[in-house]
């Protein structure tokens, strides 16, 4: 079997049974899959298809394995873009595992998918010069800590050449929250304590797994 080309893992606070239902129930699928409808009886060997709200076929295939509530394998081909249809069938595996009180589902697709991340553009972006020292607006409006940051950034200019860094792992997640809240959660020590990433003042980041939530 060939190596997966794309793996996405997410953790969801639910039960395997509810997650299985969400992956296979047409009404639920429609809610989260942007009005896409799934047509399938979810038995191994059965035909499977996805349809747009206007009735056009999006994707077709076949159920290869269905082991509720643990594992679903779909043979999958795009139908609405000729260049993607020409790529032929891929295999999409969804695995549901318990992770303490949460469970995760993992979709692994074996096919060379069109690149969703423009790596070259990303590398170019990441080699942009640093913002001018002192431009940083810091939550701690303490003059001393701002100055300390400016100094460390000047020093870093000499040390970190970002064009030398190539992306190796990219993870994308959509969150229903304003950008400011996401920013605060990532950078505010009190909030990020809950989401496992904490940052100290003076421009240095501290990430500690001991800050990872352990209580519900």
């Amino acid at each position, binding site marked *: 079997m060939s190596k997966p080309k794309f793996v*996405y*893992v997410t*953790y*969801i*606070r639910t039960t395997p049974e509810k997650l299985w239902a969400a992956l296979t129930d047409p009404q639920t699928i429609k809610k989260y899959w942007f009005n896409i409808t799934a047509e399938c009886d979810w038995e191994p060997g059965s035909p499977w298809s996805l349809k747009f709200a206007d009735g056009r076929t999006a994707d077709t295939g076949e159920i290869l394995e269905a082991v509720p509530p643990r594992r679903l394998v779909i043979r999958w081909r795009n139908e609405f873009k000729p260049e993607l249809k020409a790529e032929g069938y891929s295999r999409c595996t969804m695995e549901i595992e318990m*992770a*303490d*009180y*949460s469970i*995760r589902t993992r979709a692994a697709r074996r096919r060379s998918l069109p690149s969703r991340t423009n790596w070259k553009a*990303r590398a170019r972006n*990441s080699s942009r010069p*640093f*913002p001018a020292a002192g431009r940083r*607006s*810091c939550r701690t409006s303490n003059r001393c800590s701002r100055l300390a*940051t400016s100094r*460390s*950034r000047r020093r*870093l200019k000499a040390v*970190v050449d*970002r064009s*030398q*860094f190539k*992306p*190796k*792992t*990219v*993870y*994308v*997640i*959509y*969150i*229903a*929250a*304003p*950008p*400011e809240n*996401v*920013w605060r*959660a*990532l*950078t505010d020590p009190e909030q990020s304590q*809950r*989401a*496992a*990433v904490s*940052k100290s003042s003076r*421009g*240095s*980041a*501290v*990430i*500690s*797994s*001991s800050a*990872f939530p*352990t*209580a*519900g």
Partner: protein
Amino acid sequence: MNVRGEVVEWSPPRRFASTWIVDWVPELREFPPCLVSYDIEPSGESVKLTMTESYSWDPPDALLSGGRSGWPAILSSLKSVLETGKPLVIKLEPPKGMMELVKELAAARPWLKV
């Protein structure tokens, strides 16, 4: 486990990047820092958060598997906190064989080879 680093980009509320120097075992202090950046883009009524872990050398997949198992848990928990106010409860452990691999790499220092 502890991670240190320095902020390389601070553009609220759009982009935050910092180096990571992991030092939960002494051997890891030999490793070059990696760069972790967060991009926050509005997308409809939601926000698209992209985490990018970058390296100045070519680390083996086995080493990257640590981040690849940890990030989904951390960022899923972040999503849950922001959307529901409640973090997820997930037990995190380094992948099997990670310590041995770290020791091998610290001895071989592949990042010094061009």
